[in-house]
């Protein structure tokens, strides 16, 4: 089982190394120094594109308002394009119209960087919908997340304003996501991923049957899908599909792309704050949790499928929903990384993982801060940091301060509100759907796993992840509307609340850092932060975990 160590070590170790120089680039591109002539030219160009709104420095309210305006118009544009796709060009396979509720769910899903898919790409979407609606949002929504993190960091660093949303959005799109996507897309097409505007190919099989083979401009789509913590696949079964992910090398590239920018965000944060040690501590805490979860998943998934007990079948690791050209280790690595970040793409079917393995992605999304979505994952972690700082202050009996900001009850109340919202959306939604035919009539697996399917769907929606226990029959009006709303609330409140907290903090005079202050760079704080994360996650979701995956594990023969 050398591959179960080699593959994750290569992916995580290699990406961690790559993330350091990329973090420097992110800091330079997103928050350029006044003396940086090349970046000044870029800023000039972006100002010309966006117009006069790009000039002034914005406080948190102006920044948030610009962000909401952009997202609202992006949503409307994509909703309209999806509703009209049957009348528009670039539709070689003559795809028909979408229902209003599916178009609503899909627009909400992609505008929130979730990419939950209640449709199957190659069956439902025209090439125009895929490229101009869905792929476009896969570029600009990670850029929105990155902009939020940069704004937050500027506020904490004591700048006079949070910057300008219109500039940050374009910097993140054109200077970060676009160059990476070009590199990845070219590599993917060279390694086997299709890139054509022709419609499906028709083949006559060796046994004489007709086979339609869906294809399209897949390489361009998949590159940004993986890099932007998006996860919405070109094909229905995502990167399990042999044309979306043809082999081990494309798989390796796509796995690295899942965590590359989320990791680099941490280093960028440290650079903008001028606190590299603080960034290192955050990185270590995130990495420690990530590796622990990956170890648990590897162990749980090495067991053969319980359904084959007593049958004349070789006892290998569970192969249901997995691809021979990728193997078990690469699938488990992907499953953990894609849910630790808010990516949500898959290269093996989550529904068919062993019960305890299936619990790990849920834990990933409940915490939603072990690297997490681009920008927003670290913002989530920052809320946990505030709570930990406050607890630490209580424990040592000092006024809690965080890098020169006094943390008081008002800020912590807001932080806890943002964190608790996650639990309310997931558990509230699951309770409502598990108790009614809205959910109970749509599960495809019996017993506790049916409950897990509902729990997973709300978890994935609120965490803006997008993966699923896909057996769930979720293209119904109740599912489309409910998860659409959960995705919107789960995206924008955890963006607006932290910006408001920064507004409160920066309105107060800075506090002096003394010897007695709990340093946010040290091992003590790292331990406190980890415990805070685990207690929050465990206390909130433990009962649901017991009803779902744990009960299923115990029910196995």
């Amino acid at each position, binding site marked *: 089982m050398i591959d179960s160590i080699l593959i994750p070590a290569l992916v995580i170790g290699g990406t961690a190394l790559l993330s350091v120089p990329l973090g420097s680039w992110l800091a330079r591109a997103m928050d350029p120094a006044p003396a940086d002539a090349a970046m000044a030219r870029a800023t000039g160009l972006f100002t010309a594109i966006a117009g006069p709104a790009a000039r002034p420095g914005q406080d948190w309210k102006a920044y948030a308002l610009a962000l909401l305006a952009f997202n609202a118009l992006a949503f409307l544009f994509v909703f309209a394009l999806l509703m009209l796709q049957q009348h528009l060009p670039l539709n070689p396979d003559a795809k028909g119209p979408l229902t209003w509720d599916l178009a609503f769910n899909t627009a909400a899903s992609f505008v929130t960087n979730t990419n939950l898919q209640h449709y199957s790409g190659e069956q439902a979407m025209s090439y125009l919908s895929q490229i101009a609606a869905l*792929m476009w949002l896969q570029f600009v929504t990670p850029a929105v997340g990155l902009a939020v993190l940069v704004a937050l960091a500027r506020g904490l660093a004591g700048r006079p304003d949070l910057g300008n949303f219109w500039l940050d959005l374009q910097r993140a799109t054109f200077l970060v996501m676009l160059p990476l996507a070009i590199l990845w897309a070219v590599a993917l097409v060279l390694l086997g991923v299709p890139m054509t505007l022709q419609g499906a190919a028709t083949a006559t099989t060796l046994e004489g049957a007709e086979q339609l*083979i869906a294809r399209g401009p897949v390489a361009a789509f998949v590159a940004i899908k993986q890099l932007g913590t998006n996860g919405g696949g070109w094909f229905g079964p995502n990167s399990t599909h042999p044309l979306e992910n043809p082999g081990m090398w494309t798989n390796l590239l796509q796995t690295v792309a899942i965590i590359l920018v989320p990791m680099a965000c941490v280093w960028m944060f440290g650079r903008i704050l001028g606190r590299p040690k603080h960034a290192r501590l955050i990185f270590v805490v995130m990495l420690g949790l990530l590796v622990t979860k990956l170890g648990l998943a590897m162990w749980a998934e090495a067991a053969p499928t319980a359904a084959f007990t007593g049958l004349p079948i070789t006892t290998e690791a569970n192969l249901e*929903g997995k691809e021979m050209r990728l193997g078990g280790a690469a699938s488990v690595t992907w499953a953990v990384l894609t849910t630790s970040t808010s990516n949500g793409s898959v290269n093996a079917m989550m529904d068919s993982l062993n019960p305890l393995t299936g619990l790990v992605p849920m834990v990933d999304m409940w915490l939603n801060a072990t690297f997490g979505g681009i920008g927003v994952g670290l913002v989530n972690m920052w809320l946990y940091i505030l709570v930990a700082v406050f607890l630490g202050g209580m424990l040592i009996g000092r006024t809690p301060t965080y890098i020169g900001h006094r943390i008081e009850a008002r800020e912590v109340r807001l932080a806890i509100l943002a964190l608790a919202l996650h639990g309310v959306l997931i558990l509230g939604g699951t309770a409502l759907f598990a108790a009614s035919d809205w959910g109970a009539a749509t599960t495809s697996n019996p017993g506790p796993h049916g409950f897990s399917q509902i729990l997973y769907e709300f978890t994935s929606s609120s965490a803006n992840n997008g993966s699923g226990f896909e057996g769930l029959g979720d293209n119904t009006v109740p599912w489309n509307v409910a998860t659409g709303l959960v995705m919107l609330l789960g995206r924008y409140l955890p963006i607006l609340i932290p910006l408001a907290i920064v507004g409160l903090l920066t309105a107060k005079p800075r506090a002096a850092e003394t010897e007695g202050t709990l340093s946010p760079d040290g091992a003590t704080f790292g331990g406190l932060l980890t415990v805070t994360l685990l207690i929050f996650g465990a206390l909130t979701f433990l009962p649901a975990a017991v009803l779902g995956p744990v009960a299923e594990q115990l029910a196995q023969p």
Partner: protein
Amino acid sequence: MSIAASFRTITATLLVCSGLYTGLVLAVGQALVPDIADGQLVERDGKVVGSRQVAQKFEAPHYLWPRPSAADYNGAAASGSNKSATNPELTERARAEIARHGATPARPLPAELATTSGAGLDPHLSLPAALYQAPRIAAARGVAVADVEKVMAGQTTMLPLASGTRLVNVLETNLALDAAFPLKKPGG
């Protein structure tokens, strides 16, 4: 002012990210690797018989059978089974595959032949799962088992980074079998 800025940034990002970017990758792919860019289609006698990367249905005894498919090998509607480990339907399907392949406790079925892949289009089998089917194929074609095994071995590629897993491509292996042992009734 935010509305105007939204329109302007939406237009610019759409032009660059959906337009120029897609065009660039399309041009590079079609210029350098047109075969890959079009989906790795395979031709025999000038006719497209499938894609190297997409499993197709094989049921005749003289062909190598791929893994079972939850999508019935529909290349335009891929799907996994999404069945959980505790789902009795998984056991039922496994029993059907055991019967189809004639597996016995002395000759257990390789697990991949009892399980569906994520997309239902897995184009590969491990070499052991291919060799497992060699006796049936040899009998149907009226040739020695060792000769069929030799064709399969010739189709083997190593899976990178995966401690010695050997794979064969089912469609290419079947093309090689047809070439090595021509049938009187092609496609029979």
